[in-house]
């Protein structure tokens, strides 16, 4: 007995130490993001975004649920950028770690596999990084996305160019054969047709493609006014590099993913100039929201204060923070932690934030927030150039041919 007593104590301590998250006044969120594998970088953005919002809210004393203050905490797992792992980890978060709510993974495919699990346990998930509408076409009730849907990504760019130049006629669209990019590509192509442009080239290339010279050669033959790329960062970089290799010089060139992240310029140096990029959010936008940071600027400053290593802030960070804000507001509205109640509160949510309006349509997508377009300009900086209401600078158009640059 004498001997066992301390052991028992120790064990008890361990048990307590093991579950700090379950301490009374904390709401535990669960998230399976990619920390290794193909999208490890974006996964890191996502995690930073979630953490930043949670810390900020906690610093303000947490959130108020039915007159009681709760702190927030997030339990993370690494899905290795493999969506089948996501499903498994969401199960783990819900069953083992007993999380109350789920914050989405990075990417459309993982979100696609996470959604049914949340549906199965009736645990609401707000995700910030999966905008493929295929996720929301299944009528899931517990999955919501704060970001604008894939098909809108390049819409703004087409509008922008057409406002600048009435003479544009032709568009080429190439996309990665993967749910999200596929939707971006077809969305852009459809919108271009709708606007009376002629889509002279529309092809999908397989994920992991290391050489697009063949596609670009075909495109060069068609000599389109606009070249749109819908893939991931790596693809966008590859397309620009090889476009220069092959002297493909359209009047405008834009991508769904890539230009908005700092690595784009780090990789391409001055070759990144004049490239347009779609973005869910930039710190130049002029929203005035009701949240700890109010404006994009406010958010950016606060975030940089915490993460000096960041240059400009990738939109994945902001939208991830936005997901946490949306959750907190919905929970406060519901005034309870009951998943069903919170779910309904989310569905009914309509708030303005530093990230823009957050309001979900019947499927759970935030179709109310517009996309913005950025352009990398020769001064080495990146400017929001669309929508014009919030444009920091006028877009440089047309893009000078590669060999005409000094």
């Amino acid at each position: 007995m004498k001997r066992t007593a301390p052991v028992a104590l120790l064990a008890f301590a361990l048990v307590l130490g093991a579950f700090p998250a379950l301490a009374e006044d904390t709401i535990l969120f669960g998230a399976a993001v990619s920390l290794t594998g193909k999208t490890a970088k974006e996964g890191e953005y996502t995690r930073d975004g979630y953490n930043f919002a949670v810390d900020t809210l906690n610093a303000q004393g947490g959130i108020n649920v039915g007159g009681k203050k709760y702190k927030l905490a997030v339990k993370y797992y690494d899905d290795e950028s493999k969506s089948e792992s996501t499903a498994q980890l969401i199960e783990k978060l819900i069953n083992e770690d007993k999380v109350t709510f789920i914050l989405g993974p990075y990417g459309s495919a993982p979100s696609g596999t996470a959604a049914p699990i949340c549906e199965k346990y009736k645990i609401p998930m707000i995700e910030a990084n999966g905008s493929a509408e295929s996720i929301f076409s299944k009528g899931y009730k517990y999955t919501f996305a704060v970001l604008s849907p894939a098909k809108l990504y390049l819409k703004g760019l087409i509008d922008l160019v057409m406002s600048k130049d009435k003479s544009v006629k032709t568009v080429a669209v190439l996309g990665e054969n993967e749910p999200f990019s596929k939707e971006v590509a077809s969305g852009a192509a459809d919108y271009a047709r709708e606007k009376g442009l002629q889509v002279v080239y529309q092809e999908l290339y397989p994920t992991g493609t290391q050489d697009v010279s063949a596609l670009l050669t075909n495109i060069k033959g068609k000599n389109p006014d606009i070249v749109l790329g819908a893939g991931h960062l790596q693809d966008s970089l590859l397309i620009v590099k090889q476009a220069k290799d092959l002297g493909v010089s359209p009047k405008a060139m834009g991508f769904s993913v890539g230009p908005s992240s700092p690595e784009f310029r780090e990789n391409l140096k001055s070759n990144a100039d004049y490239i347009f990029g779609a973005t869910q959010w930039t710190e130049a936008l002029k929203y005035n929201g009701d949240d700890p940071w109010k404006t994009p600027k406010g958010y950016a400053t606060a975030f940089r204060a915490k993460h000096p290593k960041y240059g400009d802030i990738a939109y994945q960070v902001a939208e991830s923070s936005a997901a946490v804000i949306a959750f907190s507001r919905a929970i406060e509205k519901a005034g309870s932690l009951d998943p069903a109640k919170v779910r309904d509160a989310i569905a009914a949510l309509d708030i303005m934030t530093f990230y823009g309006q957050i309001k979900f349509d019947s499927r759970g997508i935030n179709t109310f927030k517009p996309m913005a377009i950025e352009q990398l300009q020769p001064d080495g900086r990146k400017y929001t150039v669309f929508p014009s209401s919030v444009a920091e600078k006028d877009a440089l158009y047309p893009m000078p041919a590669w060999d005409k640059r000094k």
Partner: protein
Amino acid sequence: MGGAELGQIFVNAVLLSGILALVALGFSLVWGIMNIVNLAHGSFIVLGAYITFFLHELLGVDPFLSIPVAMVALFTLGWGIQRGLINQVIRAPLLATFLLTFGLEILIVNLINYFFKADVRSVTTAYSGTGFTLGSVRVPYIRLGALGISLVLVALLAWYLRATRVGRAIRATGMDIDAARLTGVKVATIYAATFAIGAGMAGAAGSLLSMIVPFDPTLGGGYTQRAFAICVLGGLGNVANVVIGAAIFAFVDVFVGARLPSLSRAVTFAILVLLLILRPQGVAGKRV
């Protein structure tokens, strides 16, 4: 497609086959001599790419000049891995060595990921993307240079294996390990040298790729697969076969890519399987 396009696509294919030849060179050597399919080959390529990248970023070394550094570094690593690990299981069943190298691949890739993070990198120099135009056909300098260096290294290895004492011993060991012993060859050393050379070549390939494609720690896997396919297409046992295999692969890939991009890999592999069934010893190779 028009004549101009055909010409351009043809040139693209030629340039691509050069790099692919170098990618598959070390893989083929190790397979041919030691009968090991080295799944860690891709991770060696990635290491080469990172070496070039950091030398360029931090010390401003011109990527082409960093190739020898990458080769030496990978050579050393390869030697160590062979003596330390692979040599321990080299006589185990085929799949054992296969999985050992697979484990190595996971290990190396994720160590890179852990230390250098998953950021996408690429080496961009003042002359990146510049080139000259023949008629309507663009020839970018870097890819041309890559082609040149690949061919030089291929030739160098061919010469080394043919004309030097150790090179001859390497080929001899690959043909008859016991007879080689009877001429005084210490097989463990020769194997180490073979594997190290293979790794060194992978390093060089990595250096070149770092200028051509944006990369992250996961770049390698795809190239291991390509190397595998190229060796089968070309056949083992001769450096020249690698070039042939690479050319076939590149041309199929590029031309199919130009017609139906989304099916390029399917078609390439379909052709590969057919070739295997019709000519198991490879297009150029002798049965091994």
